[in-house]
């Protein structure tokens, strides 16, 4: 998975949990919280959906790594690529 693909995965999850937000002009280097109305419940949901859809675990201590799309990509892409491939 590339970093861009990873950003798309996160954007798709946000679109599902916050369908009332407009995601067309999300800036990858700006904190998500500063562009969207996302609270701690929503961030928990991003983590929960990553686990549900991809079996990917984000420990609570690492939630800060999900601040922006760029930081999500930095943090999550290696985790995605380390997942056992499903066949």
């Amino acid at each position, binding site marked *: 998975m590339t970093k861009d693909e990873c950003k798309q995965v996160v954007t798709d999850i946000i679109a599902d949990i916050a369908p009332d937000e407009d995601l067309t002009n999300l800036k990858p280097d700006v904190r998500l919280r500063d562009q969207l109305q996302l609270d701690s419940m929503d961030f928990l949901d991003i983590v929960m959906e990553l686990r*549900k859809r991809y079996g990917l*675990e984000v420990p609570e201590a690492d939630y800060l790594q999900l601040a922006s799309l760029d930081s999500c990509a930095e943090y999550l892409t290696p985790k995605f690529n380390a997942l056992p491939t499903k066949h």
Partner: protein
Amino acid sequence: MNSRTHYDVAIIGAGMSGLAAGIRLAHFGKRVCIFERHHAVGGLNGFYSHGGRRFDVGLHAMTNYVRPGTKGTPLGKLLRQLRIEREEFALCEQRQSRIAFGPHGADTLRFTNDFAVLESEVARRFPAQIDGFRRLTAAIRAHDDVALDAVPHSARQVVREYLSDPLLEDMLFCPLMYYGSATEHDMDFGQFAIMFKALFLEGFARPLDGVRVILRVLLEKYRAAGGERRMKCGVKHIVAHEGRATALTLDHGEDITADHVLSSIGAPETARLIQSGHRGGPPPAPGRLSFVETITILDRPPAELGWGSDTIVFFNDRPRFEYARPDGPVDPRSGVICLPNNFDYGPDAQLAEGIFRCTCLANYERWAHLPEPEYRAAKQHWYEALQRSAQRFLPRLPAPDALARATVTTDMFTPRTITKFTGHLGGAIYGAAEKNRQGRTELSNLYLCGTDQGFLGIVGAMLSGISMANYHILKKG
């Protein structure tokens, strides 16, 4: 078939909070089952059929209504967390509501879903208080009311730092207490702030078909997410061993096990189910506040009686408003009138019949043990007393017998009805006075959600189920 005997999570009670918790847990892959003693879902916010009609219980109006695009409020959080589209609830806004005080309602404050209306009403009736009212509103807006570790303190004391007129103070407390306070005389400021936002800063709405629309949406989500439920299947005992709930014994004797148990039936009600070798301290006291409600079905919309503008009216005829368990069976001096026809359902939709509901404080003990003939006579007596009392706060009827002539049928619920159908001790709709924000119990894997966890109203009930499922179960993986 529901034949499983072990679940990741067992939920006791299929009310708003249990269903909301169930949706969250099932959505994230937990094997969940909701156990409900009654044959219908909804709990304190359900509906029942009587003489071919369906009556809502509990719900006068859904509080916390905000228009589309308003973010960061409880309604928005709830919709996101449960993956519900706003349109599914099909909410229609109130016309206007009133707080009417004095023997004939001479002191009034109108409010709508536009907060500026209440603000201008306060400025008109209490010009000397308006600055304080604005500062109080600002303090409430800034208050973090979902913190699970808030320390309780007196709302009356806080409000008096901003307002010096006891009439205005009482007029603001009256609706907030009637729509959710489990404590007499005063509220915790956190609860006051939640209710102030829910009623005044946000507002009232309801689906045309009432609470069943909301329940239908919740049930559909729950089923689609893979949740199970067993109806007419209450939990008789929670078997405890070494500080954990190890099994649930169902009413018909079967035992089931679960890693986590979430109980929505109330704190004292849950404590009573626990069977363990030792007592974990005295169970919390049941709440002291209960209510009666009269429901009058009319052959015409209330507007034809001149009652077309008000959706909800909160009334009180005494010099000071007293929110407390009455000594007698009912206290008809203050209460709440609801005219469900007076929501804005749009030009082409209206309820099939007129409905006039009136709610007053009641004393459970004075109803609980009456023999059947006396119970029926008391209902008749208080039905008439409530009607007379409430009419003082509505526009004068075109003729003195106009209401009686328009009446098709009536019904009334009492504290006894509440306990019979919901299992809540003492008919205490708002539960125990003491709330348990973190929902912990004497057993490490048994948690509370719903009324006694302390988020108020039906939006609060659903958020309670969501928060407890997140906090105790989903966050832990």
